[in-house]
């Protein structure tokens, strides 16, 4: 009996963690860009949706293989976001949060309407490549191959980002700017350029997440708004400008959501909202803020 129970727990954990990985891949860019510039970017979900569409359409319509399609989605979304950042976002860095919220909501509408016009309002079908379908034997149990794949990819990305964040010059510059922007600027760090790079990279990551998560999040024009609250919850619980914080928060929310959907299919999300409120009241800057400012 205990063995069965253990396997049950393991399968719930695996499902939740794989969902959490996708949440992490999408949200990490949002956390870092918000931490850097204090810019309230509600259009981040729209970038994830846009990238997801690029990836899925490339696979379904053009017959591009899975991995090249992911790369394509990353690059296209990064370029689009870079253009938007240089042309439009840049003008609002010194504006109030109100204008930033309004601007990014407007951008979300443009993305939703644009996708509806070009592609259509229906949900896009997503099929993982044949090698990732079916079940994988883990030795003590079998589990969906795609979920295991997501976990492996997620762990690789976390490790890669953590190394990049903690061990490279660029990462050090980002950390310095999140901690004290003025000081970083007076030390000669080109914060504008730094921000452009992280913004494009973060949007590209969101695109990856949009494509990888299309299997269970679905992909339709309302995606940009539907999951926005989740991304924002992850970022505000994890803390702004952190990689590890967002990772823990994503896994936490992913597992919690999975468990609640399983045992309380009606209104289980209410606990996530309540928990977020309590957490933010206890620690307004999130659980894992880099420094106590």
């Amino acid at each position, binding site marked *: 009996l205990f063995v069965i129970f253990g396997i049950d727990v393991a399968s719930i954990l695996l499902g939740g963690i794989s969902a959490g990985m996708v949440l992490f891949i999408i949200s990490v860019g949002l956390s870092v860009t918000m931490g850097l510039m204090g810019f309230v970017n509600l259009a981040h979900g729209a970038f994830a949706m846009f990238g997801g569409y690029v990836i899925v359409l490339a696979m379904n319509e053009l017959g591009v293989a899975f991995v090249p399609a992911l790369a394509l989605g990353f690059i296209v979304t990064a370029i689009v976001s870079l253009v938007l950042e240089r042309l439009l976002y840049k003008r609002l860095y010194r504006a109030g949060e109100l204008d930033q919220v309004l601007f990014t909501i*407007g951008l979300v509408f443009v993305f939703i*309407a644009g996708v509806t016009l070009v592609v259509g309002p229906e949900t896009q079908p997503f099929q993982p490549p044949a090698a990732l379908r079916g079940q994988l034997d883990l030795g003590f149990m079998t589990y969906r191959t795609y979920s295991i794949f997501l976990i492996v990819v997620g762990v690789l990305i976390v490790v890669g980002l953590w190394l990049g964040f903690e061990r490279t010059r660029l990462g050090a510059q980002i950390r310095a700017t999140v901690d004290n922007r003025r000081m970083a600027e007076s030390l000669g760090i080109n914060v504008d350029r730094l921000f452009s790079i992280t913004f494009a990279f973060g949007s590209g990551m969101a695109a990856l997440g949009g494509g990888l998560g299309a299997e269970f999040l679905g992909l339709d024009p309302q995606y940009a708004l539907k999951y926005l*609250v989740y991304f924002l919850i992850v970022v505000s619980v994890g803390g702004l400008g952190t990689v590890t914080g967002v990772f823990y928060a994503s896994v936490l929310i992913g597992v919690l959501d999975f468990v609640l959907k399983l045992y309380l299919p009606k209104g289980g999300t209410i606990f996530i909202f309540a928990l977020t409120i309590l957490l933010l009241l206890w620690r307004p800057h999130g659980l894992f803020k880099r420094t106590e400012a």
Partner: protein
Amino acid sequence: MSAVTSPSDRPGHALTRSEHAAARMLIARHHVRWWEPIPWILALAYFFAFPSYLGFGTDLLITILFALSLDLALGYAGILTLGHAAFFGAGAYTVGLLAYHGIWSEPLTSLVLAAIVAAIIGLASGLVLLRTTGLTLLMLTLCTMALLEEGANMAHEWTGGFDGLPSLTIPPIFGLFEFNPLYPRTQYIYALIVLFLGFLVVRAIIYSPFGQSLTGIRENMLRMHAVGSPVRWRLVTCYTISAALAGIAGGLWAQTNAYVNLTTLSLDRAATVFIILILGGYGRLYGAFVGAVAYLVLSHFLARVYPTAWQLGLGILLVVIALFARNGVLGIADSLWRRWQAGRKP
């Protein structure tokens, strides 16, 4: 008023303090301008001019009241909230639940109850939420609203869940004026009077010293702390009043539509009223009016025919407003008027 020396303070200067241009402007600030009756005359004219569009007109008036309540919190006090539909929905569900379960349905007292319930939620959530600012505040208001929405969804034995509470019976006002769903004349006049009263309250607040201190908090919270203003209590009071007004708007919505559903608590409604207010111009008394008329008329005629094009156009409009016209339609009108005046003078 302050320690800054103005030209009139210098000895030998002919002007006394109250004759100074700035002082005269401050004293006359709350006086009724010549154009202020115009919206109300237009609203009355609408009643006679478009008898077949009174349902739309009623919705418009309620939206104005809702946007006005948001203006008090967001526009004047600078409380960044994306969850104002929480109070709209609280008011709507108060009226709806009381009427549906046959507990109480008299319209005017129901509205008062809706205001009280929304104010209590506003006070309770304001006490805890208003310690925070920026993104955290935004998230907390969003989560509070989502919490209420999920709560209403879960308690479906009482609230009807996703389907809401259909066909409420609302008795006539004073036992005389009946709500007729086909010819909503009573609803229109009723909503107009409630809006007018709500407007008077907001107008009185923003021109009072209390309202001035709210603007001060919006502009520079640190400085208001430094001059000894009880910042948090001011914000909580403002948030509570704003919540009560939003609750009244929600109660009106429930009464005039004779049903309540989850959309009254949705992010969609909160985002729409946010957009309306900023479209018209926040932090100015008539921004809610201009924004609601512009938004609802456009969406009424465009959204039905070309929903996607409407969303695209709205998105582009919001981006343009955020980038180039920070003060909305009224802000643009204001600067054009100033330019015209400046051109006339020399």
